[in-house]
């Protein structure tokens, strides 16, 4: 099955190279929260693959279009304008201009028509075939709002296709029109949305820079409006000469003088004036707000209430953790754990019956089954956690959290927008770090990235659960809450220290659109959850699997390649013992603990699998019994604290390196976090030692 799909993919790639003219690449772009992801999932069925846009940016998703050979679609990060404000904006702009997709599908939120169309007008300047997907048409119809689509199409000179991504309506037509537009290269006509002095300025600049734009391979109209706006990157790319720059300055100041405003305001004003005019021609509303907007206002009355907002936020987070760790997550985990135990004992008796060699028997049962099995049994908790985080993300609640918490976060030197990546960090640091791309300032981004790994990620769950079941069965909730709170407290303290040292800087602007609340499309939630489940299973059978085999091998043999009866004589013990002095002051000087910490760098789940292999425990009860021999309750807690805070796994490190542009930053983050982990663990151990 897997092989055949791979073959198919290879074949497709080859065809892609052979008949390049037939292949169509579609780029979806629109405002944040306008349904682009849902549309992408509808078009691809949720399948993602690496593609031609993938190298330049890993926040752009790419996948094959269902039922259309040689057609791929890429979803660009959401943006309000092609001016470079956040990293997401820059990425979207780069891909459109340098990646040259065959056709742009501009997804427009029909309920936020004016704001959405501001981007549309800029996209039309790019000289790329384009279709407009007018989304949320179900809401429009529900509210009896009349859209004159024909008039809109005529005014914009591009096909306008009404769709409802969440209800899966109009997607087929959209794909059809997009492919047609790409085939016949129907570029939007130049519409004159500007008049008077702005028009004159654009016209004069166009004459002046035509050759330069051709040479730089940039669309002329786009260059002109960006020059009027004073956009630095475009000016740089065009590499204009001094006389030209002087003339441009003259043209622009002339325009500013006549309009009695400045260049940036002039362009924005022109575009919005055109849009308002267009909106009044094509839209007839029976009421000023839609039912969904009214509902949103009502919900906001509670969720961003002056007094209740903050308690509600903490309540929601507590509820999510309760579902993850206790009720739902617990039941599902228990069931799966039972299934795994049954399977392992079946394999065990099977191996004994067939008379397999003792080494092989030990490898399979004590190595692979113990390691991978112990990690896999935590799958349900991770699924539950991601399910709720996806719902939070898709419902529109996250921006409200940023709104409510902004002032609090600013006190510690962060912005309200940092809280969204931080919350995602409870699931997994990798997507969380990528989510920082929507933060406008580099200072905030770097600070947020450095702190995200302190938000205990779901991969550390198995570890906590393992120790809690061994030591703190009666205080499960308290210990779990203590660990999560400690992560938050440490990040707050670190943020405060950074604020007064490394990242001084001014408070950065906070401009955030609050989209209406929407019922999350179950398909999107399911897809995102499934993606994470897949990632987890993949990790269990690749990194964790290999790690367990290596660990089993290292602990079963000595330097002379003889199988040892006592793991204390093994190669691994020798390696682990080197690291022991480092952890002795923290109370867990056992070589098995230090070895587990080292293997945990590949993936945090590997800490559990390593402990399972090293203690030779094949089920949870046996593992608990073994742990009690190695740790005391205090050192167990210190060990959990250290695992919570110490350097992130390789996948996170690679992401940090990519997002912070260089190993230097990544190494600093590693040193910083490991130092913090050691210090905090030492404090906990020392203070705990006094009381106990």
């Amino acid at each position: 099955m897997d092989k055949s799909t791979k073959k198919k993919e290879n074949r497709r790639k080859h065809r892609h190279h052979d008949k390049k003219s037939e292949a169509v690449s579609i780029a979806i772009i629109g405002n944040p929260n306008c349904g682009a992801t849902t549309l992408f999932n509808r078009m691809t069925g949720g399948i993602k693959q690496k593609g031609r846009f993938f190298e330049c940016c890993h926040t752009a998703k790419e996948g094959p279009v269902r039922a259309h050979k040689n057609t791929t679609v890429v979803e660009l990060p959401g943006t309000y304008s092609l001016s470079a404000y956040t990293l997401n904006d820059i990425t979207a702009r780069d891909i459109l201009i340098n990646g040259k997709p065959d056709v742009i599908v501009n997804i427009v939120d029909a309920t936020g028509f004016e704001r959405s169309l501001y981007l549309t007008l800029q996209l039309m300047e790019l000289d790329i075939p384009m279709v407009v997907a007018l989304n949320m048409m179900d809401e429009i119809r529900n509210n009896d709002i009349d859209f004159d689509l024909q008039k809109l199409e005529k005014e914009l000179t591009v096909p306008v296709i009404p769709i409802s991504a969440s209800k899966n309506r109009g997607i087929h037509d959209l794909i059809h029109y997009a492919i047609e537009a790409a085939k016949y290269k129907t570029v939007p006509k130049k519409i004159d949305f500007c008049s008077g002095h702005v028009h004159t300025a654009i016209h004069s600049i166009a004459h002046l820079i035509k050759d330069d734009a051709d040479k730089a391979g940039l669309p002329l109209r786009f260059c002109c409006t960006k020059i009027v706006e004073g956009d630095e990157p475009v000016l740089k790319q065009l590499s204009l000469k001094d006389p030209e720059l002087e003339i441009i300055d003259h043209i622009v100041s002339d325009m500013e003088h006549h309009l009695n405003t400045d260049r940036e305001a002039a362009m924005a004003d022109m575009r919005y004036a055109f849009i308002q005019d267009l909106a009044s021609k094509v839209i007839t509303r029976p009421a000023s707000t839609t039912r969904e907007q009214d509902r949103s206002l009502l919900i906001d009355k509670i969720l961003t209430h002056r007094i209740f907002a903050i308690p509600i936020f903490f309540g929601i987070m507590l509820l999510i953790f309760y579902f993850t760790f206790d009720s739902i997550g617990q039941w599902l985990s228990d069931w799966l754990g039972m299934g795994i135990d049954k399977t392992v004992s079946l394999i065990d008796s099977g191996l004994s019956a067939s008379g397999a060699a003792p080494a092989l028997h030990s490898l399979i049962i004590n190595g692979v089954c113990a390691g991978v099995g112990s990690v896999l049994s935590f799958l349900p908790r991770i699924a539950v956690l991601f399910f709720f985080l996806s719902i939070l993300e898709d419902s529109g609640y996250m921006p409200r959290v940023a709104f409510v918490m902004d002032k609090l976060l600013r006190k510690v030197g962060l912005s309200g927008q940092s809280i969204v990546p931080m919350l995602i960090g409870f699931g997994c640091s990798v997507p969380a770090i990528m989510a920082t791309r929507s933060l406008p300032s580099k200072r905030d981004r770097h600070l947020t990235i450095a702190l995200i790994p302190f938000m205990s990620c779901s991969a550390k769950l198995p570890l906590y659960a393992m120790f809690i079941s061994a030591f703190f069965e009666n205080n499960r909730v308290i210990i779990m809450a203590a660990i999560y709170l400690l992560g938050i407290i440490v990040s707050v303290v670190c943020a405060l220290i950074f604020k007064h040292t490394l990242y001084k800087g001014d408070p950065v602007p906070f401009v955030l659109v609050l989209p209406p609340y929407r019922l999350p499309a179950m398909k999107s939630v399911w897809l995102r959850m499934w993606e994470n489940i897949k990632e987890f299973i993949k990790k269990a059978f690749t990194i964790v699997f290999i790690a367990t085999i290596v660990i089993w091998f290292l602990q079963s043999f000595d330097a002379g390649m003889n199988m040892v009866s006592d793991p204390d004589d093994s190669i691994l013990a020798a390696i682990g013992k080197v690291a022991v002095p480092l952890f002795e002051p923290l109370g867990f000087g056992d070589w098995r603990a230090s070895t587990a910490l080292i293997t945990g760098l590949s993936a945090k789940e590997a800490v559990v699998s390593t402990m399972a292999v090293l203690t030779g425990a094949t089920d949870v009860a046996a593992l608990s019994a073994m742990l009690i021999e190695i740790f005391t309750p205090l050192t167990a807690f210190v060990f959990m604290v250290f695992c919570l805070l110490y350097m992130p796994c390789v996948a996170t490190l690679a992401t940090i390196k990519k997002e912070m542009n260089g190993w230097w930053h990544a190494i600093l983050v590693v040193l910083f976090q490991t130092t913090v982990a050691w210090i905090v663990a030492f404090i906990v151990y020392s203070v705990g030692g006094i009381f106990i």
Partner: protein
Amino acid sequence: MTLDRLKPGTRARITAVKGKGALRRRLLDLGLTPGTMVMIRKVAPLGDPIEICLRGFELSVRKAEASEIEVTTEDCSGNINCSICPYSKPEDKTSNG
């Protein structure tokens, strides 16, 4: 008058967006152009960011940013066709000097 001084529930018309650089660009891109009607929706629980409503959507800005936005609170009820979330009609445009 600047936007940060208005009480929740008040409507006003933007007369100028001061400040400079990326932030100003962002505000203009989101439609806070001169002549646009805005309404103060609410103030965040801890007193800082404010929520404003313009062009049919909700936007959150800090008071520091709002203080860069100059507004007039003329009585404009006659011009507005929207009771909850006002935005200026095309004929209301007053930006060209």
